[in-house]
């Protein structure tokens, strides 16, 4: 499992500083043996201090130091500079922070950064077609599917996620697919149209 960190006896690998959770060692040791057979390890990240995390974002590998309480949203924006992903409610209700997690939509505000280790994260920056806009992005531009634009990255990623699961959705499936994304400007009609156009565009290309 763990490929980094210091493996210690007792089937526990620890990262960061020794902190107030030293008691875990004795507990997690239960069931482990000194045999050569690898025992799965409970990895512990200390509350105080920073621990090493490796993230796969938009096809790139990033190594960084994180606190366990940091969300994926915070890390993407404030540590990796990927500010396309927006903070809205930061409580799982608006969808502005939507990313793809192994190709499936998720709220990055409700995901601990540590939970993303070993998974492929795709943000709005990662769905460009090289230097050009990706089909969903282009469709949103073509259909004027926004006013202020704040919800737009989340809407686009939600549509991208939907189309990866269902390449030719009905209008009701589109409505359902973006139902976890609020638009305070009420651009919904255009957003639905953009999603339908994106589906058509993707099928042509």
């Amino acid at each position, binding site marked *: 499992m763990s490929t980094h960190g210091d493996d210690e006896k007792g089937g526990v690998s620890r990262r960061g500083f020794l902190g107030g959770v030293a008691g875990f060692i004795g507990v997690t040791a239960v*069931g482990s043996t000194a045999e050569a057979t690898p025992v799965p390890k409970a990895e*512990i990240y200390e509350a105080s201090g920073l621990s090493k995390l490796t993230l796969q974002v938009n096809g790139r590998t990033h190594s960084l130091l994180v606190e366990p309480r940091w969300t994926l949203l915070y890390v993407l924006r404030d540590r990796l500079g990927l500010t396309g992903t927006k903070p809205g409610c930061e409580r799982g209700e608006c969808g502005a922070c939507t990313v793809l997690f192994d190709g499936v939509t998720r709220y990055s505000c409700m995901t601990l950064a540590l939970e993303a280790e070993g998974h492929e994260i795709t943000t709005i920056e990662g769905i460009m077609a090289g230097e050009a806009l990706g089909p969903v992005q282009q469709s949103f531009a073509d259909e004027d599917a926004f006013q202020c634009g704040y919800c737009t990255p989340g809407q686009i990623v939600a549509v991208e996620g939907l189309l990866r699961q269902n390449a030719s959705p009905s209008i009701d499936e589109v409505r359902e697919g973006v139902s976890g994304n609020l638009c305070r400007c009420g651009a919904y009609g255009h957003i639905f149209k953009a999603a339908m156009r994106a589906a058509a565009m993707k099928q042509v290309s």
Partner: protein
Amino acid sequence: MMGSFSYVRAGSVKQAVAALAHDGARLHAGGTDLLGCLRDRVFDAGSVVSISGIEELGGIAALSGGSVRIGALATLAEIASHPLIRERYPVLAEAAASAASPQLRNQGTIGGNLCQRPRCWYFRGDFICTRKGGSLCYAFDGENRYHCIFGGDGCYIVHPSDAAPALVALDAQVSIAGPGGSRTIAVEDLHILPKQDIRRETSLEAGEIVTEIVVPPPRAGLRSTYRKVRERGSWDFALVSVAIAAVVAAGKVSAARVVLGGVAPKPWRSIAAEAALIGHAIDESAAMRAAAGAVEGAQPLAQNAYKVPLLRGALEEAVMSLARP
């Protein structure tokens, strides 16, 4: 901002149970409810014990004998779209599909859905209510339009899960691992009322975790459905919901389980509604009698009397939707 906590990535159920033995340890499956609670400071965590990487806790598969095993980490999205569930247990597929938003269904697990904390705004807010160890239920004399009409006693929450009423209707079993070993109980016995213990919503003991759910084989003639009424069409918790699993043989209901959501601190089985159906054909008069039975004994608070007729209507509709296979 959440308070700081250490993070334990458990590689096995055993490790998770051991790590949960520590004061202030909190279980993390999908994390959606946990992060919400931590952010609202409903409680703090000394450590967060994540089981999200434990493979054996995932998956949906048929068992020999015809039951279906749903791992605790199966997401609501997986349950809603799984062919086995859709084919055999429409009530469960519909309930899972009606919960939360696409993003939350992709992340939220069935184990977490059953164990999620209540949505009462006093509980989630800065109020030391009875459920948090205080002496007052602020909802009782306060803003209570989303609170319970059955089973309240010192606390008037409703159980927020959509999947739970469906699983109780299907008479599913839940397996639990803990410091004392493993045990299996009916999902019906998982949730408890405030009068049993006002501080928790399930019968899980400290350090116990849900590991899997087993839904029994569908009986011949099983018809099932989930009807949810919510304030906001796009996504919302249930104002009221109805889960029905009925076996129809030779034109008559031979067995039925009717379980109500959004109206009580736990999934609320209505024996009166079941009795009104059993032995009868599914028609309007049976539906009306079942609906009348379901609201018997309701004790609305100042602002939620609307739930009584709403529940009647939802139940009538749910029953009538089963008139044809």
